[in-house]
């Protein structure tokens, strides 16, 4: 395969939805064996571009050259025939079928087959798995796999179809950093075999780490496109957001002298974690990190009464509290923002205002336990304004908001209660750079107002940006407390991996 001739050239692509330009004269070139990142915030047009190149959406203008053909618009079948495969965020796998069948079935369909022989499925699947040297159980059902293995299955399926360009939409969102590292190794081996990969991402670190070339989209236009070596972190952030964002560590240290809001002593839950001892002082943001399965989430869930701890004591403002249920935790002043904001945190079809007050109804009722609507409206409005949620009206359903704004509504719901201690699990997963910055800024502001904040995360830059102190959890125990100069990317990663 010649190294210079591009595999795919998209030129002057434009697409309007209603009166809004989703894409405006966008061009993109993908060469063999390269990793090309399309970076941009939510709503910048990344997804629309992928959909056009995979043939799902027809562009208003522009041409796509792939192989030797030039298309005004591709059909999905033509795109697949030309070796373009898209791995969507949900992977589009069949949870009820085996890994082998998931990998092989599309190529059987493409060859117009009518019958299926299990040994043949396994042969096709094994060939692909051996080609990229991964370890997957061919007979496992996809629903029993980890997220990382599902992603591998999706990659293998693309390769089974002789993919020459693989588009991956936000491939690392649901992975732990260890799994991300494994993914990057596979990506490197794919490159060597001449396959081009196009990553769509808004995570600065991985964009810089993995790609040879970067194209940045903002508001449907290409802002800049070039060799990855020409970019550094601030330049990329500026290109994506169009503004300068400071990424300074919090330095206010007066919290050290204050009495703790939360004291946790010897907390344990059989099989998950034990001997967990720490405190949180007003005005402090405490980080808790660890690998998936280390117990970091279970500690938070125990504090919030989802899975109550068996041993240990918890004190809030010096008073011992017993947390055996979520209700106990809420009464003691805890708030919890779960990791899966879409399924656990929101009523998607209800209005924004109703979602905001949903967690504090007991504070908003008057006589006869009836809701005091005017107070509720005021609380909702104040909190939403505080968080700068972009919305047409607080009566619109939450579903109509973008991911980042939905995240803020979840936060608003907890802030409406004014909790004494707010626990956030991976607060900025799936949130673009700009919104992420604002959310972290807001957490810092709340901590300055005296709220105790615990951030559970495995996103190291996020921890560094917002936390005064970071606890590292490994195999259910706190193995390190990092603070001040000891709190760096390197120390966190060393402790995680040790």
């Amino acid at each position: 395969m010649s190294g210079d001739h591009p595999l795919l050239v998209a030129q002057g692509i434009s697409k309007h939805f209603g009166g809004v330009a989703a894409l405006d004269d966008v061009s993109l070139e993908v060469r063999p064996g390269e990793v090309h990142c399309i970076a941009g915030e939510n709503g910048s047009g990344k997804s629309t571009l992928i959909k056009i190149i995979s043939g799902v959406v027809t562009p208003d203008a522009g041409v796509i050259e792939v192989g030797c053909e030039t298309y005004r618009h591709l059909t999905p079948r033509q795109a697949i025939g030309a070796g373009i495969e898209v791995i969507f965020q949900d992977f589009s796998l069949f949870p009820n079928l085996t890994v082998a069948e998931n990998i092989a079935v599309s190529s059987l369909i493409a060859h117009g087959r009518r019958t299926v022989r299990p040994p043949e499925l396994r042969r096709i699947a094994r060939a692909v798995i051996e080609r990229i040297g991964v370890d997957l159980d061919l007979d496992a059902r996809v629903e029993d796999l980890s997220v990382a293995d599902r992603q591998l299955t999706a990659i293998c399926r693309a390769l089974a179809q002789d993919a020459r360009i693989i588009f991956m939409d936000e491939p690392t969102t649901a992975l732990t950093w260890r799994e991300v590292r494994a993914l990057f190794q596979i990506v490197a081996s794919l490159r060597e075999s001449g396959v081009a990969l196009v990553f769509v991402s808004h995570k600065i670190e991985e964009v810089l780490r993995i790609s040879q070339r970067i194209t940045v989209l903002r508001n449907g236009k290409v802002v800049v496109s070039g060799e990855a070596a020409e970019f550094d972190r601030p330049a990329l952030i500026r290109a994506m957001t169009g503004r300068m964002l400071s990424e300074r560590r919090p330095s206010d240290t007066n919290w050290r002298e204050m009495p703790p809001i939360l004291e946790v002593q010897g907390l344990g839950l059989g099989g998950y974690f034990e001997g967990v001892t720490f405190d949180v002082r007003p005005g402090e943001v405490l980080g808790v990190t660890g690998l998936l399965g280390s117990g970091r989430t279970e500690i938070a869930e125990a504090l919030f009464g989802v899975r109550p701890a068996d041993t240990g004591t918890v004190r809030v403002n010096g008073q011992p509290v017993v947390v055996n249920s979520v209700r106990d935790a809420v009464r003691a002043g805890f708030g919890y923002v779960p990791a899966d904001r879409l399924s656990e945190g929101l009523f998607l079809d209800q209005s924004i205002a109703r979602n905001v007050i949903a967690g504090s109804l007991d504070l908003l009722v008057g006589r006869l336990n009836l809701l005091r609507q005017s107070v509720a409206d005021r609380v909702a409005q104040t909190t939403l304004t505080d968080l700068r949620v972009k919305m047409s009206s607080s009566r619109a359903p939450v579903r109509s908001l973008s991911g980042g704004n939905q995240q803020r509504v979840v936060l608003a719901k907890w802030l409406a209660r004014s909790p004494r201690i707010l626990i956030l699990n991976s607060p900025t997963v799936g949130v673009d750079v700009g919104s992420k910055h604002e959310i972290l800024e807001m957490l810092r502001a709340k901590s300055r107002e005296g709220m105790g904040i615990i951030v559970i995360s495995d996103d190291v830059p996020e921890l560094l940006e917002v936390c005064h102190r970071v606890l590292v959890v490994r195999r259910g125990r706190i193995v390190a407390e990092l603070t001040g100069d000891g709190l760096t990317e390197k120390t966190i990663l060393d402790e995680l991996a040790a």
Partner: protein
Amino acid sequence: MSTVPSAARRLRISRLRGSNNEGVLVVAIAVLATVVGLVSPSFWSVATLLNVGTNSLENAVFAMAVLIVMVSGGIDVSFMAIGIFAGYSVIVLGNATGIAADSAWLGFMIAIAIGLALGLLNAFAIAVLRLPTLIATLGTQTIIRGVMLAFIGRKVIPDYPPGLESLSTTYLFTDYAAIATRLNVMIVPSIVICIVVSLMLRYTLVGRGIFAIGGDAESARRAGFPVTRLRVLIYLMAGALAATAGMMHVTQVRLANPYELVGGELDVIAAVVLGGASIFGGKGSVSGTVLGVVLIALINYSLILLGVPGAWQRAAVGALLLIGVSAQALSAAGRHRRGTIVQAEEAAA
């Protein structure tokens, strides 16, 4: 840690249980047979086998229709209406025109044609209009039954065209020890149909497509399955199977009663669910389904044998349906928990 041996044990147990609860059903059938046999020794007779076989041969074919739809993620409650519509219409038509006078084959072919036409009605509502399957088939069930009672007839017909009459008295086995206990030869096509459906589901791209749609319809579309065409095919197949089963029923009872079958959907749906088919789609097997049909036939027969009033039979079937669904929910929860632990162990390793 003790997790390793227990994981191995879990694996062995799950293998015994079968991917669709087949093992559990075999055990349940054995336990039931033992208990009923102890209470009522007359259970141990050829008559029991023939009775259960007679009851199962048509329900197994109905169950194939329900299974195909359920694996694709839908639920069909119109199959009994299609069955009796087809069966009753063939008898009326045969008597009026003499068309299926000498050939039972032709009677069945006409029934299947009617089943395909009615299946097309379901297919249109579900694949084209995209209505939820339960509501769509509730609607078609009522329409089909209403049309039959209004236009085809309301009378119970004891006279059959000669071809069907002779099929209805062609027995594979007769137990002379018990009065009127025989097994109709139609058990043979019933078994053949089950085998064919099983092969179709397992070894054809259409069958795998049905599983794929049940797993995730949008993914099936992206993988290149012709989802709409498959859905149409699913309801056509279900219609044809239901009509065949209805024809078998009408032939066996030798009394064409348009008020029969509709209302008895639960027996078949419960059998399919007990047989491991997921009400959320994507899971199910013919072997499990057939065992479920046999279990329900056995329970109904045992309750009669023990002199339990008919109302209790209905209660028993309802309870079995709940047990089947609960078993699915519990095993899904168990798998989720195991997944978490395995991940935790991997991360700790």
